[in-house]
Each structure stands twice: as C-alpha cells, then as structure tokens.
C-alpha cells in the first residue's frame, strides 16, 4: 500500500477505516458460507498476524480442554473423564477394531435413510408444490406430522421392522422426509412467475418446462435443504441407536455407560459424533460451491 506519490506509509500512518467494522461483518458472512475460508483478516496487516488470527479458535479450544483437564484432576467429578482419558478411550476403540465398525454402522444407516428420503420426498414435493390444490390438500396432514419427533415413531417402527437396522433406517427416513418435502414445496412455490412465463413464451411444453426451468430454479434451495436435512439425519441416527439398535455410535454411548460406566468412551463417542457430523456438513457445503449452482448465492 502506498500513498499517491509513491511513499510507503509507516504502520501508524495507515488510517484505520471506519468501515473496518463492516468489513469484518462482510467477511463473517463469507465465513458462514464456507468454514474453511475464515477471513476475518485486515488485509492491511502482514501475514504472521493473519496466521495468528486463524489459530485463535484452536487456542480457544485448547484453553477449554486445559481447563477441563485441570478441573477434573483437582476435583474429580464422579465418573466424568478428562480429555486425556477421552483420547485414551478413542485409542481403545481403535485397538479393538470397534471404532470403524461403529462409524460404518451409523453411516450406513444414515445413507440409506437419507437417500430414500431424498429420492421420495423431492419429486413428490416438487409435484405437490406445482399444484396449488395438491398443496392445499396435503398441507394439514404435513403440518400435523411435522412436530412429531421421529423417535416417537419408535414403537411403531419396532412393531413393523423389529429391532435392528431397518427400524433405524425407517426412523431416519421419517426424520428427513417431511423437511425435504417442505423444502421442495417451498422451492417450487418461490420460483418467480416470470421464469415460468418466459419458458411458456418460448414454447416449452410441460416436460421441457420442468427440466429446463423448474429444476435449475429450485436446485439452490434444494441444496440448502439437503444440507440441513443431512444434519437432521445425523441427529436422528444417534438418538435411534441409543434406543433401538445394537451397534453404531449412539449405541456406543448407551452401552459404554450401562456396561461398566465407561464414561471416557461415552465422551469419546460424543466427540466422534460431533466431528463426523461436522465433516458431513462440510462435505455437502462443497456441493454449494459447484459453479452451476452458485447463481443464487451471488448476492454476498
């Protein structure tokens, strides 16, 4: 950065723009769209400073863990593990080969339940959203079913599917189906009429209208819905496993506690759930970055 006459200003000459605040806000918005792009940085500052800024959250977590460790070592709370013990617990799981087994079990159920919900809910939702009458017809039903936690379906799930994978998949499917349905309905209803009219104007028949106008127009909203619903699926699978099945990360938590109060494994399980959930979320956010979907995110 230079003055207009070419001089390089000294550090204290650099004016702090009053819009620095706004710039922070702007970059926070960017941060929201992609976790890996944390840019709360003043670009006037040299880059060692930027690195430190990036490390701040890590420092925060480390601080928290240290406090936790010391607090428990000094005053052992009955059964609550220290971070070190938690890591040991994870090591334990790896050693016994259980870690991979449980993670795979949970992911397997999520995948099946989620994909099933996507395949059924989205076309159905698009169809219902397209027709005002259909939306009127199904809306009360949807609104009554929506506040019912998937877990409340457990007795019925066990009745129909027994205790096991199918019941869990059914619960995940239930948890994902309605939100996706609503997202699809909403997405179709918020297509600006001008797009449809332009399509009809150019002589597109119904089928062409669907895949050349409707589908591209709804995709951005659908992707957001997909991301949120994946998060829901992950929450449901863990809860379902705590109640209704015999493997998976949720089961790990319940089992570790029941069979010997292994709270180090309990917390280890929780940490793993958090990390994998986060990875799933980041994975699907990268879909949002695919160029052809980005048109509706352009107003940053």
């Amino acid at each position, binding site marked *: *950065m230079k*003055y*207009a006459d070419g001089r390089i200003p000294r550090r204290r000459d650099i*004016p*702090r*723009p*009053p*819009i620095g605040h706004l710039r922070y806000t702007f970059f926070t918005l960017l941060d929201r769209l992609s976790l890996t792009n944390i840019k709360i940085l003043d*670009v*006037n500052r040299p880059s060692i400073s930027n690195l430190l800024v990036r490390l701040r959250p890590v420092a925060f977590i480390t601080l928290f863990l240290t406090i936790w460790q010391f607090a428990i070592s000094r005053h052992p709370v009955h059964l609550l593990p220290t971070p070190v013990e938690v890591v040991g617990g994870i090591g334990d799981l790896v050693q016994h080969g259980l870690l991979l087994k449980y993670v795979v079990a949970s992911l397997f159920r999520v995948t099946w339940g989620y994909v099933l919900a996507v395949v059924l809910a989205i076309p159905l939702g698009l169809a219902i959203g397209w027709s005002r009458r259909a939306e009127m017809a199904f809306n009360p039903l949807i609104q009554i079913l929506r506040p019912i936690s998937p877990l409340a379906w457990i007795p019925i799930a066990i009745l129909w599917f027994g205790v096991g994978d199918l019941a869990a998949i059914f619960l995940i499917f239930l948890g994902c189906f309605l939100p996706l349905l609503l997202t699809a309905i909403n997405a179709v209803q918020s297509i600006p009429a001008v797009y449809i009219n332009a399509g009809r104007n150019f002589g597109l028949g119904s089928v062409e209208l669907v895949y050349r106008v409707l589908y591209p127009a709804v995709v951005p909203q659908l992707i957001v819905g997909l991301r949120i619903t994946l998060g829901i699926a992950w929450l449901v699978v863990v809860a379902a496993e705590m109640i209704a099945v015999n493997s998976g990360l949720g089961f790990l938590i319940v089992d570790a506690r029941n069979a010997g109060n292994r709270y180090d494994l309990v917390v280890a399980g929780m940490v793993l759930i958090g990390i994998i959930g986060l990875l799933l979320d980041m994975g699907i956010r990268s879909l949002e970055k695919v160029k052809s979907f980005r048109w509706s995110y352009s107003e940053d």
Partner: protein
Amino acid sequence: MLPLMKPFVTPAALATKLRVEHVNMVFNRDGDSTHVLNDINLEVGDGEFVCLLGPSGCGKSTLLSTMAGFLSPTGGDIRIDGEVVRGPDPRRIFVFQERGVFPWLTVEGNIGFGLFKLPRAERERRIAYYVKMVGLEGFEKTYPPELSGGMKQRLEVARALAVNPDMLFLDEPFGALDSITRLIMRGELLRIWEAERKTIIFVTHDIDEAVQLADRVVVMSARPATIQQIVTIDVPHPRDISSPHYLELRDGIFKQIGLAHKL
C-alpha cells in the same frame, strides 16, 4: 412549481463550510486495489447547494460518504468548519435512498429518532412541525412499508432535518422514484432549502436534475474520478427550464461529459 427564492449569491461571498483537499481514495480488497478518487479539491460555501454529477460507479457516492465521515480518505483530508472530519456526526446528516428509513418505526418514530436527547414536549413539537413540512400529515402512525416511494423519501428528509443539521448529504435520493414524483420532489427539496438554508451536497447522475437544483455543478470523470469541471449555475430560482441561459449551461455540461444533445 419551483418556488421563488432569495437572490442568488456568488460562492466567493460565502464562508467556506466544507473544504476537500487533495483527497485520494484507494480500496484494497483481497489484494486488488482500486483507485477510486484521484486528487479531489473542492470548496463549498455555507448555505450552498452543490451537485456532484457523474456516470454511475464513478466514485461520487464514495466521495460523499467520505465527506460525511463514513469512510476515511486514503490521502488528503476533509475539513468542515475548519475541523478535520473523523466520523459521522449529527451536524451533517446523510440522506440515503428511501431504504434508509427504519421499517420498524412509524413515521413519527423515524422523525423522532435523532431527537432522543430532547425533552418529550419539545420532541413532539418538532416531529409535528416536520411532518407538516414534508407533507405527511395523517400518516404519523403509519409504518414505512405502507408508504409510497416518494413518501418514504420525504420521511427520510424529515428525519434528517429534525435534528437541525448544518449540512445535508443526499445520495441519489430520487433515484428509485418515477419521473413525475421526481419532479415534485425536486420542488419540495428546493422549498425546504429555502426555508432552512442548509448546505446541501447532492449526488446524481441526472444532468437535468443537477442543473435544475444546484448553485454549482461539480462534473466528475469516470473512475479514477477527478473533477473535470465546476459549472456555476447563475440562473435565479425559480428556474425557467427553457430559458436560453439555462439551456446553454446544460448543453455545456452535456458536451463536457461527451454526449451529443441530439439522440
């Protein structure tokens, strides 16, 4: 419709209200730097009506924001009444386009917004006065989403005036309005200016608007913006927009900007 005004006074006879000296503005974003303003020098007298005129995106809004204190110039400085401008101040209110109005407050609430330091009776008196002045009687308890564009703009001007500032900065305030409302609003603005005689700096890309309203028109070039020309409009108000002198000045500006006046 453009009201009768006091005789026109040349700028040299007025005390300097605002002085812009060698102002430069460079924006840095993600490593790219954009040179927006290049060595701007300007003096504005007390009570003058000055227009900044230029094509869209040339930096006139940036200059206005800098004058109002929302941005800091990369180089040079801006003084109002002799003091360097360091930030926004209630003595110089910025009027945005109608979207600057607060949608969660009624008309009364908006106008009274800056008056929080006053005792209640005084505040209500002022609100009533300015509601009347901008012609929004009967809408005191209405919320902005129910007002038309022109009414919202008047509301914003009333809000600005209620705190009795020395200067008003207006950034294309009539841009979102239809052209008939625009003409009406220009008249309103001049009427208010006559009554209160604030120093006004007005940004526009509409040549006719500039020539109809301002005492002086500052013609700015495209980015990086410099001042190409300052045209003094010495036509007394009310301005006859078909008088030869008016047309001469207007055509001069057209030529300056490089546009032919035949389509």
